[in-house]
Each structure stands twice: as structure tokens, then as C-alpha cells.
């Protein structure tokens, strides 16, 4: 298996009136070809900013201050803007949460998909349309030829998201960053897309970083999981292991607070307090004020422990089972 994406020490900061806020803090992970990594976190944890940072889509006042993003061995951050642009869409593509915002409402689906083809390859218009039709067929859109003639508003939400995924697949990129792509969809449509994505990954060998807040989606879709809290990855490992025996108290709390696993009507175990403000983080472990296992030592930066297959950032991790 080849490593499609490797992120090393990625740090992204946003300048604010009260000084720099670190949204992504020393984040490292890698994704192999043909695997899906679920990047899980609550709002404000930095999961989406991580996705945007990998794509190099951070605008002022944000700035990637440190780290490497290696796509098939090429560090995106070493490249000039032009060279970066030619990687984007061809080697690494992105699917966003709301396809109505990302598709151009005044262009036919076929026109915008053909445009995406011709940006990177010198082919005729009709050849580009053919490529677009193939891509739509791959993601399971019936009557793909007719759909190319449609405008985005004529498609349902699920169809639009399929178009967005098809567009990302046009150049068979090594990596796709998917930012909450099914959050806005209904469960029955979400189920269809998840099944489709799993099949595509198995067939094409694309690596996917699936950014989401939904643990249930990740547990049934992803091969690996990384859990983010306050800008850091606090736990990572194979999906089966992280879900079955979480070692970070935050991951444990998060999994416990999902209603489906408990006797109906029983009090849900809850994490006290609320997600921290990035501008005002406690020293050391940011989860410290909400953590049942916290001690004095937690005021210092916790170390990585565990194995490569299941690593945790905590002074007092739960026992590995």
C-alpha cells in the first residue's frame, strides 16, 4: 500500500484582534491509498480547517504557519501558487458540505464539469463532456447524459452531492478531502452516498479524508479514525479499535453520549461543560477542565503514547483492552 497523503506538524493560525488563534495545532497523520480516514470532532475542533489547510485554501487572516502536506510525496507547501493550483483538482480534490453553494447555479452541470476537465488537460469540449458523463455514471446517476444538460437547481440535494463527488473524481485524484458531505442530506440519501463512496474507494484506490461530526457515520464507513479536540488530534487509530476501546477520556465521553447505545429513557453519560474557546485555551491539555481523570500534571502538554496503530495524546489514557 502506498501512502497517498501525509500531513506532518501542520499548524494553522488565524490573526484576531486579541492575537493569533491556533485552529490547527501540530497535526500529523497519513492516509494510504484505498483507505478512508474519518476526521472527527465537534464544532470548533479544527477538523474543517485541517481539510482546507491540506488543500492550501486558507485565506487571510488565516495562515499556515508550520508543517508539511505531502501528496504522493510532493510537499504542497513548497510549491509556487501556480504549481499548487495544478495539483488541486488533479492530485487532491475536495467535496464540500453544501453542493448548492459549490456548484455554479447559472451553468449547466455538464459545462462546469467539462470546465474542470479542461483546466488540467488539453482535450476537446466534446471529449470533456464524455469524461463528465462517465464520472456521473460512476457515482450512480441514472440517465447521466440528460443530467449533464440540467442546471443545479433542477437536481435534488442528493443528486447535487453526487455531481460534486463526480467532479472531484474527474481526474482520478490520489486524495479527496470530503468536508461533511452528507450532513445536509436525508438519512436514506446519506445511506446511498456512503455505500457509493465505499465502493468507489475500493475500486479506484483513492484515499479519502472524511471530515465529520458524526461518529456513527465514521464507524460504519471509515478504515481509520482521528479525533480532534481544540485543534489537536487527541486520538487516532483503526476505526474498529478507536470505537471499541477508546483510550482518550474525550473520545470515551463522546462515544458514551451517543443515545443509540443506551437503554431508552436512562440518563445519558454526559461530558460536563462546553467546547472551549480557541482564543482562551487552558494550559496543557485543553480537555482538562472537563475531564474526569484530570490531575495537576495535565496542566502540562500531554505526551503521545500508544502504538502507531492506536495513538493517544493524554497523561492518563484509559487502559488498552
Amino acid at each position, binding site marked *: 500500500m502506498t501512502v497517498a497523503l501525509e500531513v506532518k506538524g501542520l499548524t494553522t493560525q488565524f490573526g484576531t484582534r486579541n492575537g493569533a488563534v491556533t485552529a490547527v495545532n501540530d497535526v500529523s497523520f497519513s492516509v494510504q491509498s484505498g483507505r478512508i480516514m474519518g476526521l472527527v470532532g*465537534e*464544532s470548533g475542533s479544527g477538523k474543517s480547517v485541517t481539510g482546507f489547510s491540506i488543500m492550501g485554501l486558507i485565506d487571510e487572516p488565516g495562515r499556515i504557519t508550520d508543517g508539511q502536506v505531502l501528496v504522493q510525496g510532493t510537499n504542497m507547501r513548497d510549491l509556487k501558487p501556480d504549481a499548487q493550483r495544478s495539483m488541486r483538482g488533479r492530485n487532491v480534490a475536495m467535496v464540500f458540505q453544501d453542493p448548492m453553494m459549490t456548484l455554479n447555479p447559472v451553468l449547466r452541470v455538464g459545462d462546469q464539469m467539462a470546465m474542470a476537465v479542461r483546466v488540467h488537460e488539453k482535450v476537446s469540449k466534446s471529449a470533456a463532456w464524455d469524461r463528465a458523463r462517465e464520472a456521473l455514471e460512476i457515482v450512480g446517476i441514472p440517465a447521466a447524459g440528460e443530467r449533464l444538460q440540467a442546471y443545479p437547481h433542477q437536481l*435534488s440535494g*442528493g*443528486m447535487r452531492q453526487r455531481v460534486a463527488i463526480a467532479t472531484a473524481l474527474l481526474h482520478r485524484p490520489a486524495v479527496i478531502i470530503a468536508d461533511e458531505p452528507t450532513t445536509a442530506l*436525508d*438519512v*436514506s*440519501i*446519506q*445511506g*446511498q452516498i*456512503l*455505500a457509493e463512496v*465505499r465502493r468507489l474507494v475500493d475500486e479506484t484506490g483513492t484515499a479519502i479524508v472524511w471530515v465529520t*461530526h*458524526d*461518529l*456513527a*457515520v465514521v*464507524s*460504519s*464507513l471509515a478504515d481509520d479514525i482521528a479525533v480532534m479536540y481544540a485543534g489537536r488530534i487527541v486520538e487516532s487509530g483503526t*476505526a*474498529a479499535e478507536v*470505537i*471499541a476501546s477508546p483510550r482518550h477520556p474525550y473520545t470515551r*465521553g*463522546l*462515544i458514551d*453520549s*451517543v*443515545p*443509540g*447505545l*443506551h437503554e*431508552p*429513557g436512562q*440518563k*445519558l*453519560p*454526559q*461530558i460536563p461543560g*462546553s*467546547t472551549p474557546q480557541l482564543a482562551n485555551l487552558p494550559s496543557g491539555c485543553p480537555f482538562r477542565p472537563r475531564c474526569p481523570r484530570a490531575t495537576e500534571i495535565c496542566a502540562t502538554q500531554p505526551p503521545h503514547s500508544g502504538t502507531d496503530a492506536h495513538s493517544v495524546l493524554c497523561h492518563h489514557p484509559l487502559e488498552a483492552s
Partner: protein
Amino acid sequence: MTDPILQIDAVSKRFTRSPGVLLKGLDRLTGRDSSQTVHAVTDVSLSVPRGEVLGIVGESGCGKSTLGRIVSGIYTPSAGKVTLDGDPVARDSRGNVDKLTTRVQMIHQDPFASLNPRMKVGEIIAEGPRIHGLIPAKDVQSKVRALLEQVGLEGAYANRLPHQFSGGQRQRVAIARALAMQPELLVLDEAVASLDVSIQAQVLNLFMDLRKQLDLTALFISHDLSVVRHVCDRVAIMYLGRVVETAPANQLYEKPLHPYTSALFGSVPTLGTGRARFQPIKGEIPSPINPPKGCAFHPRCPLAGPRCRVEVPRVVNASSERSVACHIQDGGTGAENEAAA
């Protein structure tokens, strides 16, 4: 069973979009009709006994929120009627909300949109009771304090503005505002959908505590099957404006009767099952402007027969506690005869 506090009787709601001036003129010339009617809720009957939490589950466009709004008196039904404790919930001839409708309080999805950003939360909570004269002016302060504490906030927060609160805290304020009216029925429309998982658990726990303390009756509208299972006694599943199945929560999750219900359960990813093989429902949700003939689910239903394409299934009682609207439970779909012929 105790007397139902809420009775929904064959309620329908249609929204009609009338065509623009040009189309209207064209219609007059050609004799066509370009107005479009959305059948948001069709022929829904439900009853809720005192103290019960009834879950209303469905995907977008199934009419669950419209139903919630009809019950709250925000929409007037196009047909049928809603009664609360025997009194009809309706607007009077001048369009004013009847006194009765203050007995139903609604909690909305987005606590960022449902609280006035320029009012202090104390004012927000006290506004309803003040206008309706439920508490004497001198007691307002202490009442607001007590309510805030009841929902797990500090009484001193009454002087803060909504932007000073997090999402979970805002939803607590919205709950306090609803409770301030001492409602007989709460309607929660996706009340925890916009909250993070860890915060969602806190708010669900609060709801279950309050429910025990105050013996609340509630409609709990949600698309989240695991949340509904956790907090509801009974569940009604809606599809394209109709209730297709009603059952006590434990029985429904154990053995769904309607093919849509089982398909819905099959397509939801759950924690702890590992890499699932999804059995996603085929096809898209049809448009409520032009719903399919017969059973609305038949184009997506793996078990549909010829009868399903022409005849709308009746709601039949599957047991004393369950009802379902499906031909399979009511004399067959016709597919059996086809196979025999």
C-alpha cells in the same frame, strides 16, 4: 389508557402557489391551471395521552414540521381539526391566536435564530407570562430566576444577552421560555439537531429530568432515530405527508411493520456495528407537489405490488397499540395473485 390530551383528527395541510400575472393570463386563454399545490400533510390522525412523549420521525419534506406547526396553532389546517383537552386549537376570525394555543409551546431547532438578540434572556423568558398575565409583576424576577435554575443555568444570567451563551445554553433558555407559559403540551421541532453530540446529551438529559418533574406531554419531532428511541414512548413514522406507522418505541425498533420503516432503519449508520453493509433505500424522495398515486412509497418499495400503485393504503390496527398503513398488513399487495396467474 387515559384520555388523550391532544387529538389530531384527519388533518391535512396544503400550500398552493398561485401563478404569476403572466401565467394567469395564459391560463385563462388556454384553460390550463398552473397553480401548484404542495400536499404537506395528508389525512393525519394521532392522539397523545397526558404524560406521553410522541416521536414524529421522517425525512425532509415528510410534513413533520408542518404537523408540529398545526398543533401549535401557527398554521390552520386545510382540513380536519386539532383539539387540546377537547377544545379546538384554532385562530379566531381576526387571525389572532386563541388563548388556548398558549397552552402549546414550541421549541425550535436553531437557538441562534429563535432568541431575539437584543433582548436579555430574562425578558425573553418573562415576555409570554407577562403578556398573558400568568404571573404578577412583582414575582417576575424570582420566577425567571427559578426557571433558569430549573434548566440548569444560573439565576444571575437573566441580565445577559443571547450572544453571551453557547448553543447548548441557548437551547436551555428556549426551554425555560417554553416552560414559563406552563404549557400542557410541548412541541420540540428538531430541538437537539443543531447541537454537538456532547451538548446534545446534556440537553436530552435535561429534557428527561424535566419530563419526570413536570409530567410533560410532548411531540418530539426529529429525523434522528437513535435520539427518538431514547426519549420517546411512542413513535409515528411519516412519509410524504402521511403517517405510515405508529407504535410504542420498543416494539417499533424491535420489529418495524412498514417497509419504509425497516428501510429507514437499514440505511442509518449506527455506532458499534463496525463496517456496515448499508442497505440504502433506492431512489429519491418524491415531490410532494406531485406525489405518486396509490401508496406514496411504492416506487421505492421492494415489496410493492399492483394494488400499491393504485390504492392508497388505509391505516389499520396491527395490534391494540400499533397501526400501520400498508397493503401487506391489509389483505396483500396484489403481487401474490400476479405470481399465481
